[in-house]
Structure formats: C-alpha cells, structure tokens
C-alpha cells in the first residue's frame, strides 16, 4: 500500500517537473541557450500567483492564465532586447548572461519581497479524498491535471500551428528559416516567451504545494536541466517522461532514505547521467 502511495506521489510531482523541463528543453533545443534564469522565472510565476491571491484573493488556478500571459511577455522582452543581441556568441557567453539575469532577478526579489517563506493556501488546500486506502490531496491532483492540460496544449501548438512550424523550422536550420521569410528574431523571442510561460505556470502551481522564497529557483533550474537531459535534449515527450522519472525517484528516496535526500539524489543523478548517458533515456541525437 505504501508503495502505491509513493508511486502516486511521485507521478503527481513528476507532472510539475515535466512542464518545467518542457520550457527549458524548448529554449535549449531551438536556440542552444541553457537558460540558467529558468528557476528565476519559476520563482517569478510563483510570486505573481502568491500576490494575486494574497492581495486580491484571486484563486491560484484561475489566476494562472494571467501569470502565464505576464511571464510570456516578460520572457519575450528578455530575449528580444537582451539575449538576441548575443545569441550567436560562444556558448559560455550565452550561459553567463542568463546567469546574470538570474542573479539580478533573485536579488531584486529578495529586496522587494524579503527572504521569508510564503505559501499559497486557498480554502481547499488541506482537503483530501481517499480511494482504496490511498490518500490523494485535491490540490496535488488538480495541479497534476493542469500540468497535463498545459503539456498537451503546448505540444499541439508546437505540432499543429503555423507558429509551431516556424519555431521548429528555425530550430532545424536557422539560415534556411531566415531565407523563407520567417522573422527569426521574433520567433526566438516567442520561443523564449513560451519557455518562460511554462516556467511561470510551473511556479504558480508550485506555490500551492511547497513554500516559495526568492532563492527557490536555483535548485529548480538544475532539476529542469536534469529532466531535459534525462529525457533526451530537444525531444518534448522526453521532457515529460523525464519529469515523471525524477518525480518518482524523489518520492521513493524521500520515503525510503529520508526527507533530506531527494535533492542529493537528483543532483547526483544529473552528474551520473551526464557522464554515462548524455543523450538521455529517449534521446538518439549526439551529445554535442
């Protein structure tokens, strides 16, 4: 019974990791930018949801579209007016500049909102239901359902729409995309905006399950990276599968080793995967 409970907890958490990684993987796959500020975007999404809830009493699930929209605009601007300026420089520089963005965002957040732990606690926060002896908190379930919906919508946008085709074309062959008249600078910005929107959504949902602080993002950036690599870089399905794997791994270690171990496991896992299987579980493409 415990085993089943742990399994369910892992899957519910995995959905959240999945959409985090989806955003990271998209930005990486299309523009070859490893966005260190990804966790800071998650943090921003979490605080937006928190303030909308605390100041005006907006339900965290209902305010999610607004959070997503704001993060999209924010991400669009960062790419369009900052990262696009150096997007073709060597990898180290693009990595470094997103590092700078993350440091600025996190510390401004510390100044503005202090380092106190906060949590989004709607009235239904504590409610559970039981099925066959298993306890499932409503919030966790709805968070999971939301992540599934977001993933599906996102994949549909990428696969079926003109915009999605433009993004994929740009990712495959930059020069050719430019020649066919795709506005590449705009597409890059939209791509980053989408990645930021997914991060923001993940943040908004995260705040209902775990405490939020300005520095919550650092570890989540790494986890998003772990999942993106675990699933195989650039494969969107891979990110979702990877998210589930990480969620399960953490759920099992937390239960069977102790609550302070999951992070050690995920980061250790990261290093091991990079060393032994840099193309990921589902990946086929070369590591370089």
């Amino acid at each position, binding site marked *: 019974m415990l085993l089943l409970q742990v399994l369910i907890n892992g899957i519910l958490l995995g959905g959240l990791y999945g959409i985090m990684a989806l955003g990271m993987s998209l930005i*990486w796959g299309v523009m070859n930018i*490893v966005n260190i500020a990804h966790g800071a975007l998650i943090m921003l999404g979490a605080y937006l949801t928190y303030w909308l809830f605390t100041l005006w009493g907006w339900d965290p699930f209902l305010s999610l579209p607004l959070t997503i929209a704001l993060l999209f605009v924010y991400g669009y601007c960062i790419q369009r007016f*900052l990262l*696009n*300026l*150096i*997007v*073709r*420089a060597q*990898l*180290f*520089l693009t*990595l*470094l*500049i997103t*590092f*700078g*963005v*993350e*440091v*600025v*965002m*996190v*510390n*401004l957040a*510390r*100044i503005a909102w202090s380092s106190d732990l906060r949590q989004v606690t709607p009235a239904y926060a504590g409610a559970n239901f039981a099925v066959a002896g298993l306890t499932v908190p409503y919030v966790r379930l709805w968070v999971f359902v939301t992540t599934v919906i977001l993933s599906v919508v996102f994949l549909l946008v990428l696969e079926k729409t003109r915009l999605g085709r433009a993004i994929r074309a740009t990712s495959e062959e930059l020069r050719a995309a430019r020649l066919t008249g795709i506005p*590449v*600078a705009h597409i*890059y910005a939209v791509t980053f905006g989408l990645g930021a929107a997914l991060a923001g959504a993940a943040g908004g949902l995260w705040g209902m399950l775990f405490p939020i602080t300005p520095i919550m993002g*650092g*570890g989540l950036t*790494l986890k998003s*990276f*772990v999942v993106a*690599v675990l699933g195989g870089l650039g494969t969107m399905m891979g990110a979702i599968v990877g998210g589930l794997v990480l969620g399960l791994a953490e759920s099992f270690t937390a239960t069977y080793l*102790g609550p*302070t*171990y999951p*992070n*050690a496991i995920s*980061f*250790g896992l*990261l*290093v091991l995967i*990079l*060393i032994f299987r*840099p193309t990921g579980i589902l990946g086929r493409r070369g*590591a*370089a």
Partner: protein
Amino acid sequence: MNGARWLPIAACLLALAVLAMAPAVVSPFMTQFLINLFMLAVLAESWNIVGGFTGYASFGNVAFFGVGAYTTGILLTKSGWPLALALPAAGALAMLFAALVGMPILRLKGHYFAIATLGVAETMREVVYNLEITGAGTGLVMPIARTPLLFFYVMLAILVAATLTNWWLSRSRFGYGLVAIREDEDAAAAMGIHTARYKTLAFALSGAFAGLAGGVFAYWITFIDPDGVFKVTMTIQMIIMAVFGGAGTIFGPLLGALVLASVSELLSTQLVTLAEVFNGLVVILVVLFMPKGLSDVIRRRSFRLRDVARNFREYRI
C-alpha cells in the same frame, strides 16, 4: 638582464611589501576587507586555471572551496589538528577530489560540462547536509583563533602562490598545452598533448587553490554550514572576477577581484542584496560590451563603440 625586464618584477615586490605592512597601518576593518579581497582573488586565479587557460567554464569550483573548508573544519574541531597541518590537508583533499571528479566530467563539453560542474557543487552541499561528521545542517563552529593577523598573511601567501602559478602557466610547456586544448582540443591531441591528463591536472590545480582558500576561510569566519560554503553565488563571483578582469591572463583576475570586492563592499554597507544585484548587472554588461574582459580593454588602451557594435553585428540575430 636589462632594466625594463626587472621593472615589473620590482613593482610587484614593492606592491607586495606595501601589502604586507598594511595591517600595521590600516584599521582592523580594512584588514578584514583585505583578507576577503585576497580570498576572492585566490578564487578568481583558481578559476582562471581551468576556465581561462584550459577553456573549460567550470560553474562548480565552489565545491572545491567547500571541500577545503570542511576538511579544515573537521580536522580542527573533531581531530584537534593544528592549522599548520589542517590547511595543507585541505588543499590536498580538494585537489584529490577535483582530480577524481574531473576525470569523468572533463570528457564533457560546453553546456554539459558547465551544468555537470554546477551539479557537483549542489550534490556536495546536499551530501554535507546529510553527513554527521560535517555537523549536517547545523554546521561546525571552529575554535577561536588567537591571532587575526595570521589569516591576513596566510591568505596573502596563498594568493601569491596562486598568482605565481598562473604566471608559470603563461610561460611553461604545461601552460601552452592547456591553451592549445582551449583553442582546439582535436588539434592539441594531434600535436601530442595528452589532453585528458592535462585537463585533469589543471582541474586539480584549480581545486587545490580553491581548497586552500576554503580552509583558511573556515577558520577565519569561525562557523561553516552547507549553505555558507557551497554557495552558487561564490562560483558566480569567481567567474565574474576572472571574466570581467580578463580570463586567461595573469593580472586580469586580480584586477577583477579588486574592482568587484571594492564595489560590493561599498554597496553592501547599504544593503547586501544590492551588491548581489550589482554582480548580476556586471555579468550582463561584461558579456554585452566587453566579452574579452577589462584587462583586454586596458591592454589595447581603448574601449571603442566600434568594437562593441562589431560584436553585436557578429553575435545578434
């Protein structure tokens, strides 16, 4: 030997002599600032060995700093070793750790290497959180040091050693091998350079200096905990200092450390987090406007908008 060759060496010795006498003249507060400055400069020079010369952008050098800090911490508090033995042990253990971690990780390139190193640092913090010998989450409290000046001179000595090591790299066979690896690893191997061994040695050397700095830091600051010594921000500082000053040069990292430590100190008297915001802005501005670093700008004695514009034309989309 003519006069022109001796001039820079004489200037360095003079500067060193002035620094060595500083504690007698300046306020205790200033002495503390200098110790911190020396430490940051050691870290910048240490990062420079692997990030600047070898071209492997490590985002996890703080792991070596932390290993060094905990080695001294444990040896001082639990085993009762004197600092004279504990400190070399810290350097040696950090070096060994860097070599062992480096062997597999240095096969990775680009983003993968950067993130793997970040992962190593985070893993170490989490591991330390879970170990009893390290005091887990509560940390370790050091015995009180009798003489605060000790830290000043030990840190200065380590800085001199780190700077000399970088100087040696710039004019030795080993250093040329590292630079060749940075410029083109395949060509370097084809020219007879044992790339795996060179990279691992560079990583170990870098780890040794970071470990020594961490070892002194632990005793100086008297209290260490996982969040304090495995801080991601510390890695960022190393990178900023080296890149801002000019990666792959000898005095660039020193320059970067001086500028950043001073400005951070000035800002942090207002608000600590403001200094961090400043750090982040510096990273962004350096990447945008002078990717080759401050020392390159000084060397060419020009900071022309034309160069900036050319970089943008080349790199923007």
